[in-house]
């Protein structure tokens, strides 16, 4: 019986782990080659994982919200060819409640062991998980047993949460394990300092790792895990939602940016009457071109502002203490989606026309909202624009999209009275809120940039002036 393992592939440059965003199959499902089986999320994008083989799913190595190392086991599939049946035959057998291993049973001892395990697991599982029942338990046990005999170096990577288990060895203490054990632990994301070694001289053996995985399985099915925080009275909680996926990613990145970057925010009032008039005129004569919002005009102003404030358009690698300046202007456009905030990148804004930018912004927004944005469309920006549109306030304090060093917030437009020297006149006014990484951008440079943006937006002809 051939059990094939699909491992989490490299999903992007430099990424060593990814969070499981969605599992699209369940144990017992039949999948064809190239069928989608899961989606994982990196720090940039959600990537769909497809099956490299056809067959029946017998083991699933991740759950939604779990972070897996690149290369770790994701799904195991029993090769349909080895079972000698067609997909339809499997479907029939499964729907009749027969375990998927029935047509090719394991040896007696193994089957007995699997059957023994099944009731205990079914009893301990929460109701939703118990839907797969004994069938899943048997399939899982067979898959595990096969994996141990066929490919011991990649046995079941389910494990206790490393953060919840205290190290058994202090920092810097030697870990005794063979290279194969070390590699297996590394791929499963286990810190071997936390694993007790039962071998000679305290050596950690494959059996010790197996025990670690087994312990993890026990913890996974322990009742009560993942329920309310003990600090909260349980009767007040109406719903507990695990923070996963994009929301977890946003939370982490916002925390990192806010904690790491000393922000300085400058708010300035801008008279946008002229630029709004220009926008209206351009839209009236646009023909088949995309409708202009204020965003492309702000993006064009940013491109112009780069000429006098190049320092603001940078990426700061604080680990390497290096700032990278680019002649290209890649503008992140903060975009609200059903899953949360995403920031697609309007690349090479300096080479685009207003209408081209408008079209590209729409395309990127749609890609984000339909969850089809590619990784490269979500990375590489050198400055970001954030806007709440009509919902926006008088002023906001935008958080920088790390590793950039500046972000421009667009606030709500409103008709306000403005003193022109002799009388109050109605003018369309809008505040801009620009935050800067104060490690890289001094207050003076921040002020120069904001004043330049004010000037450009108030006198839009300057945006298009060629010096």
């Amino acid at each position, binding site marked *: 019986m051939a059990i094939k393992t699909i491992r989490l592939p490299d999903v992007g440059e*430099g990424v060593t782990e990814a969070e499981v965003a969605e599992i699209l199959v369940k144990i017992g499902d039949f999948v064809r080659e190239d069928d989608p089986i899961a989606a994982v999320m990196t720090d940039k994008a959600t990537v769909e994982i497809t099956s490299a083989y056809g067959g029946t799913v017998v083991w699933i190595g991740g759950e939604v919200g779990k972070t897996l190392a*690149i290369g770790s086991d994701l799904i195991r599939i029993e090769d349909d060819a080895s079972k000698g049946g067609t997909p339809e035959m499997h479907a029939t057998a499964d729907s009749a409640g027969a375990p998927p291993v029935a047509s090719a049973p394991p040896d007696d001892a193994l089957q007995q062991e699997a059957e023994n395990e099944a009731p205990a697991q079914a009893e301990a599982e929460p109701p939703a998980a118990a839907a797969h029942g004994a069938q899943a338990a048997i399939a899982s046990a067979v898959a595990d047993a096969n994996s141990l005999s066929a490919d011991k170096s990649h046995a079941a990577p389910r494990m206790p949460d490393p953060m919840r288990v205290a190290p058994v060895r202090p920092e810097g203490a030697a870990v*005794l*394990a063979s290279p194969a054990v070390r590699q297996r632990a*590394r791929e499963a994301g286990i810190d071997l300092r936390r694993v007790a070694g039962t071998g000679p*001289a305290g050596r950690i053996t494959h059996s010790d790792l197996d025990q670690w995985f087994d312990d993890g399985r026990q913890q996974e099915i322990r009742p009560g895990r993942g329920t309310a925080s003990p600090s909260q009275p349980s009767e007040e909680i109406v719903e507990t939602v695990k923070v996963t996926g994009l929301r977890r990613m946003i939370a982490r990145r916002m925390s990192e940016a806010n904690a790491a970057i000393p922000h300085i925010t400058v708010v300035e009032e801008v008279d946008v009457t002229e630029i709004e008039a220009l926008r209206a005129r351009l839209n009236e004569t646009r023909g088949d071109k995309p409708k202009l919002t204020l965003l492309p005009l702000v993006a064009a102003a940013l491109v112009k502002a780069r000429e006098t404030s190049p320092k603001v358009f940078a990426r700061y690698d604080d680990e*390497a203490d290096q700032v990278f300046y680019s002649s290209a202007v890649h503008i992140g456009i903060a975009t609200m989606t059903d899953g949360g905030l995403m920031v697609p990148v309007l690349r090479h804004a300096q080479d685009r026309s207003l209408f081209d930018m408008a079209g590209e912004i729409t395309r990127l927004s749609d890609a984000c909202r339909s969850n089809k944005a590619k990784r490269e469309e979500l990375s590489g920006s050198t400055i970001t624009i954030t806007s709440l549109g009509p919902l926006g306030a008088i002023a906001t304090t935008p958080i920088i999209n790390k590793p950039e060093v500046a972000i421009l917030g667009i606030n709500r437009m409103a008709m306000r009275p403005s003193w022109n020297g002799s009388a109050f006149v109605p003018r369309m006014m809008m505040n801009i809120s620009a935050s800067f990484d104060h490690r890289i951008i001094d207050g003076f440079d921040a002020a120069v940039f904001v004043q330049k943006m004010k000037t450009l937006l108030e006198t839009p002809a300057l945006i298009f002036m060629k010096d």
Partner: protein
Amino acid sequence: MTDLSCDVLVIGAGPGGYVAAIRAGQLGQKTIIVEKQAVGGTCLNIGCIPSKALIHAADEFHCVKEAAAGHSRLGISAQSAAIDLSRTMSWKDGIVRQLTGGVAGLLRKAGVDVMTGMATVLDGKTVQVETGEGSVRIACQNLVIATGSTPVTVPALPFGGDILSSTEALALTEVPESLAVVGGGYIGLEIGTAFAKLGARVSIIEAKPHILPHYDEDLSKPISARLKALGVSLSFDSVAQAHDPQRGLLSVRKGDAVEQVPAEKVLVTVGRKPALQGFGLESLGLDMQGPFLRINDRCQTSMRGVYAIGDVTGEPMLAHRAMAQGELVADVIAGHPARWDKRVIPAVCFTDPEVVVVGMLPAQAKAAGHQVEVASYPMRANGRALTLERSDGFVRIVHEAKSGLVLGFQAVGAGCAELVGEFGLAVEMCATVTDLAATIHAHPTLSETLQEVALSALGKALHA
């Protein structure tokens, strides 16, 4: 100017660089490797392989010479012995060509583009290469610095003319009448011993109190004895001062005294330094660790996307360390969760007798806080060693007193270089002396010494 782009750009096609490139290519990365000289680097072209070829030729010649002099204990006689060193060098060059051609083939097979030319780093993502066909600018996602090392010079003895580095010594086509070797480390001893066997009058000048100063004197003593038997003169606590090419003499100061050492040629082997100058690397401002590039356990430098492997990253400057780093760095770039977690980097000196050091020396283990026990076993008690006409040397094992965990091995003896694999495996697998003692070792082999020394450590020696 031609523009190219790639996922991985490796500068330097030595053992670290070419391994990194091959593995990166195998992992599906679009890879380019740039080499200013020949594929294979120092190791294949002017280091490990040529020196071992010369050592083998010298050994063979020495045997014939002994037989011709009527000194063969095996009853072998020969009428006369002569060597045509230029033919020896041609044979050596043939091996080098075969191996470098093999590496080039492996690179091709892995889909790696090999570019011959001088690379200049423009920034962390861009490198310009001056090739025979013009300039090429390469944009890369990942840059691997694998530029190796160069011999250290002595100000009083600048390379050129009769002052040789190992590179020139390994290309000599005539055996010099006299050769002074400045530096008693493994490179100087290997080449010096070979030329002594080829008939040169060899003197070794070492500033420290014994040869192989990184190791303890127990390990160097059998080599000193053998060098003396071969007629090599050894000067310790001595410093070379100046060479007189007309008279063929090297002045050597020892304390207050200055003596003249015969030296038609002078081989300077006082160490190697990382090759980090002259190709724009300074502009990246990478963090250093002493004279070397600072890297982490993923071979990452202080700049994201820039990696370094091999001699530029520090000691020990050994080809197999560079190769292991090369493999690692390709895995890291491909997104695999690889980290440097090796317990040991074995070292072999192809002196006569050979020296193997794996893991901790006794003093190092004690300094690291281990409760240490040391056992040794003499080569003279090994049947196979005696059949090979050699009884000098020993095998030593350093282990934890309480657990028996093996912390290190050292061995000195003719042919003991081949034990290094088992030594390394034992330490990497976290073997104990019990494991080794319980493993049957074939008789009669030199490897029996390993089982015997483990038995000694357990107080159960059978043959000593």
